[in-house]
C-alpha cells in the first residue's frame, strides 16, 4: 500500500466494460478500484474534476488499484 501525494491526473481512459476506468497518475496508468461499480464511477468523477481544474491529488494505491483519492 502506498500513497502518491501531490500528483496530477494527466489522462483518463475508460471503455464500455463495467468498472474499467484508468487514470495516468505519477507516470503510469492506474486502474481505479473495480470491485464496486460505484467506487469506479466516483473515482472517475473525482479524477475528471482534478484533471479539468488542474488540481493535485493524493491517491492510495493498493494491489495495483486506486483505493482512495483526495482532490485538493
Amino acid at each position: 500500500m502506498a500513497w502518491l501525494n501531490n500528483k496530477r491526473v494527466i489522462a483518463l481512459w475508460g471503455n464500455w466494460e463495467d468498472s474499467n476506468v484508468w487514470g495516468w497518475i505519477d507516470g503510469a496508468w492506474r486502474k481505479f478500484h473495480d470491485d464496486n461499480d460505484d467506487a469506479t464511477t466516483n473515482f472517475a468523477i473525482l479524477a475528471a474534476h482534478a484533471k479539468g481544474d488542474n488540481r493535485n491529488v493524493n491517491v492510495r494505491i493498493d494491489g495495483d488499484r486506486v483505493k482512495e483519492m483526495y482532490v485538493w
Partner: protein
Amino acid sequence: MNDNEKATPGGIPQDPTPLAAKVGAGRVAPEDVSSLRVTLDIEGGSADDRYEFHFRGSGSGDTQVEVKNRLRQLEILPKFGEVSADEMIDVFTNLDVSQMSVVGQSLPPIPPDSTVGILTVSDGRQEATVVFMADEGQAKAAGFELPEDLRRAVDKIFEIGARQVDLESVRP
C-alpha cells in the same frame, strides 16, 4: 466479466512533469544538461560468477565507473573520468521518463541470481528509475525486452564505461 479479460489503455500521454520535459524524446534542452545525473547499477550472478557494474554520470561529463566480474577475474575499483557533454546528451535523449514507468509495471518475475539493472535519471529535484533484466540471454528467456530507446541509453553507458576502464566490453 473476468477482470483479466478487460481492455486496458494503450496510449501514453504527454507527461508534463518537469523531469519528463527535460530528458527523452530525442532532445535535451542545453540549459538543463548540467543539472542532469544518470546512474546505472547492475548486479547479479551467484558467488562464482558474480557480476557488478556501477556507473555515475553527470550532464557536465563527469563519470565514475566500477566493474567486478568474477568469471573474467576482473575487479576495477571506482575510476573517475570525463567525457564530452555531447556523449552524455546521447544518454539523456534516450531516457524517456514515461517509458521508464511503463517498463517498471510490465517487468516479469525475475528468477533468482538474475543480473538486474537499475537505471535512474535525475535533475536534482525529481528522479525516475527503471528496473530491468540486464543480461540479454536471461531477459530473452524471461520474455523481457527493454524498449529500444532505453536500450540505446544503456548501450551508450556501457560504451563510455568500457572506454574509461580500457576494456573492449564491460557488459555482463
